[in-house]
């Protein structure tokens, strides 16, 4: 939200990822001063559709794309601004990401890592068709890039989470980093409540919302590959740990994913609550595990079988 250049490196490192803006996250994640933006705000590539709805446009359409360095290594990066229109996929925001992924796919000289800082409720309704299609194009571009040897790493920990198309996009990536605050899913709790009733999902019950979609549950079921502290340094460390040697996108990987998703369905399909699910996974005291600090949880997650896999 604000310029972080005035702050010391230490306070920048410890700033909350959850509360930060897309630009703050890029600044905090990447090596200082290394980020170069493509189609920056000064080019004013905005959505032409929002004005029809009397909504303000943003100079970047809520998608910041560019290149920089992470731990000295070149990376391409895209960050969604969850506060602008819920970080949604739309014609322009989607196309910016697609352009970045296709560039990575087509140019072996470009960095072989793409970081996706997801923070999105899914498709922008005011541009629903363009947005939905953009997600389909993004998913295909991710697969094409992965097939060309590019590692695509999703980072989830923003206020909008990663729902709808963003949830599918995350799971199309080579690797997923998530923090406790991060939420990952398809249909948002409010929509489930509206359509299926409050008995099915009470969206006001945040403990339930996070139990169902939040970072800790995702990490425990193997829905993410790394667990980050909710700080710039935390996400940086987690992303660095995933750099290099991505698993290939091939039949073996997908067969392994099929096996792991089938096993999950079999083992956890009957669980009715997050606590039951955690208990089935072997977490001795789900309530305590939910409330423990991040370091303790990361250690606990390491003891749960199936959280680490090469099947995505």
């Amino acid at each position: 939200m604000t310029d972080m250049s005035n702050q010391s490196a230490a306070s920048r490192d410890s700033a909350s990822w959850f509360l930060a803006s897309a630009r703050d996250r890029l600044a905090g994640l990447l090596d200082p001063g290394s980020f170069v933006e493509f189609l920056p705000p000064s080019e004013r590539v905005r959505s032409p559709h929002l004005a029809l709805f009397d909504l303000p446009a943003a100079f970047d359409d809520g998608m910041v794309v560019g290149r920089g360095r992470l731990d000295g290594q070149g990376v391409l990066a895209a960050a969604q601004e969850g506060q602008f229109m819920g970080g949604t996929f739309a014609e322009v925001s989607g196309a910016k990401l697609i352009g970045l992924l296709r560039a990575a796919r087509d140019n072996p000289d470009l960095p072989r890592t793409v970081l996706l800082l997801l923070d999105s409720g899914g498709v922008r309704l005011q541009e629903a068709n363009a947005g939905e299609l953009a997600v389909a194009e993004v998913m295909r571009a991710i697969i094409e890039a992965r097939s060309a040897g590019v590692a695509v790493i999703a980072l989830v920990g923003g206020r909008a989470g990663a729902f709808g198309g963003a949830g599918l996009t995350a799971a199309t990536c080579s690797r997923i980093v998530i923090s406790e605050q991060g939420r990952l899913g398809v249909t948002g709790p409010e929509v489930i409540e509206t359509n299926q009733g409050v008995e099915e999902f009470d969206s006001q019950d945040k403990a339930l919302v996070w139990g169902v979609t939040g970072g800790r549950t995702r990490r425990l079921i193997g829905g993410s590959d790394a667990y980050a502290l909710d700080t710039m340094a935390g996400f940086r460390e987690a992303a660095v740990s995933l750099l290099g040697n991505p698993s290939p996108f091939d039949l073996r990987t997908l067969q392994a994913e099929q096996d792991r998703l089938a096993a999950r369905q079999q083992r956890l399909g009957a669980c009715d609550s997050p606590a039951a699910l955690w208990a089935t996974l072997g977490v001795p005291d789900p309530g305590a595990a939910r409330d423990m600090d991040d370091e303790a949880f990361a250690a606990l997650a390491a003891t749960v079988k199936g959280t680490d896999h090469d099947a995505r």
Partner: protein
Amino acid sequence: MTLRSNVPSRRAWDTGQHSREQRLAAASRYARGKLVAHHDATALLEAVLRPGDRVCLEGDNQKQADFLARSLAQADPAVVRDLHIVQSGIVLAEHLDLFEAGIARKLDFSYSGPQGGPLARALAERKIELGAIHTYLELFSRYFVDLTPHVALTVARCADRDGNLYMGPNTEDSPVVIEATAFKQGIVIAQVNELVDKVPRVDVPGDRVDFVVVAPEAFYVEPLFTRDPAQVTETQILTAMLAIRGIYEEYGVRRLNHGIGFNTAAIELLLPTYAERRGLKGRIATHFALNPHPTLIPAIETGWVQQIHSFGSEVGMDAYMRARPDIYFTGRDGSMASNRLYCQAAGLYATDLFIGSTLQIDLQGNSSTVTRGRIAGFGGAPNMGSDPHGRRHASDPWLKAGREAADGQAGLARGRKLVVQIVETFGDKLVPTFVEQLDSVQLAETLRLDLPPVMIYGDDVTHIVTEEGIANLLLCRTADEREQAIRGVAGYTPVGRGRDRRAVEDLRARGVIRRPEDLGIDPLDAHKSLLAARSIKELMHWSGNLYDPPRKFRNW
């Protein structure tokens, strides 16, 4: 006719006692000892209530006798009618249903919070005959003068068979309500979560309780004082910095009360950071009359706070308070003990500063939380936020404020309580906080109220803090100066833009108005990283996981 002395009057002196006996007799078929089954609750109420009775249906700021409220709302309006409700909080929809159904007719209350909108509508439709909107202390006082309840419906965590009640941290209004009712031959009925052999602590002795109903569900408590640090804005942080630097530090305020808004939550979260860096620990904010605000946990844990007495409790704070008896008042059983009457009196007489937010401030400094179509009531803020003329003990901040107000005039030395309004110049949806006339004036006319509901009268207000700066009204010498001082911190609201720029600059030169830069504060430093905790979970971790936040705040 001549008055003859020394002849005993022949009138009956115990009609109240008779009435009570009749009511108890009518109710006896539903009771085994003091116990009444929950499915007989409505019948019990129909048996003990008489048309026109004054009834207190707690109805507090936080805890609610919700089962008894539902039971009363189901009563037959032909039997139970025209009740006069005398309770502090109109919080549940059922409270208003009573008037809709004709079960109740007249109302005297303090606070309406969530029912502020429906209450205003009911008043406009003349469905409620309004006595007055009180402060807590006023209403409690009138329980002993002219609004003594005939029947009190109270709520406790548990009871024993003798009717001894344990309320735990949520004692709140109950002792005063019950004492007024029981000692004037009224009937006291308690809903409890469970029946036990021995209560952990006797908050209300059983001989003041006539009936006990074990409710089918635990009573409702509103988590009214939980503020998520993640929601605190940079502007609120700025106003908090101004208040700490320009008022707490300036006057050396140690004994105080905070309102429930985000601005004061920001102050609480800045004590261990911003205020610590200014070396103020031990010199400010040590003793509070305050509910157990979760946002104060970091300041408590870092040794800032020495003692807190509370009006009520807060959901999830039980275990934490139990573990910090040096800070909170606790019973022999270890659980925290609150009391709204005592704490209101403490906040009125024993603190040097009240600071709180409001929705509207006019050119005289009068403030109100009434906005178009909503009557939120007062609660306790007008008690905290007033200069008690009955105060007779001195303290440095009180004397300093008094000196500023006296302007070197000869006369008896006298102090002033610091009464601070901390606001942002605009509220939600660009609604200006500063106005030429309070909405409550219009509302009072529409509803034909005897007087417009004013939260804090301008002559009690000593300072107004906004993101534009601090206006010290103690230093204003004329009505015109006062108006310009208020305009001078009213930002870009129409009131603010209507300032006399020259006059405002003069006031600033005299220190009546102080801008952030006058206090060495750069607004760009007002950053969220200054908050000692930035989420509810961090508050929980500060507490060593003793604080157990309500589910609706657990975003993890």
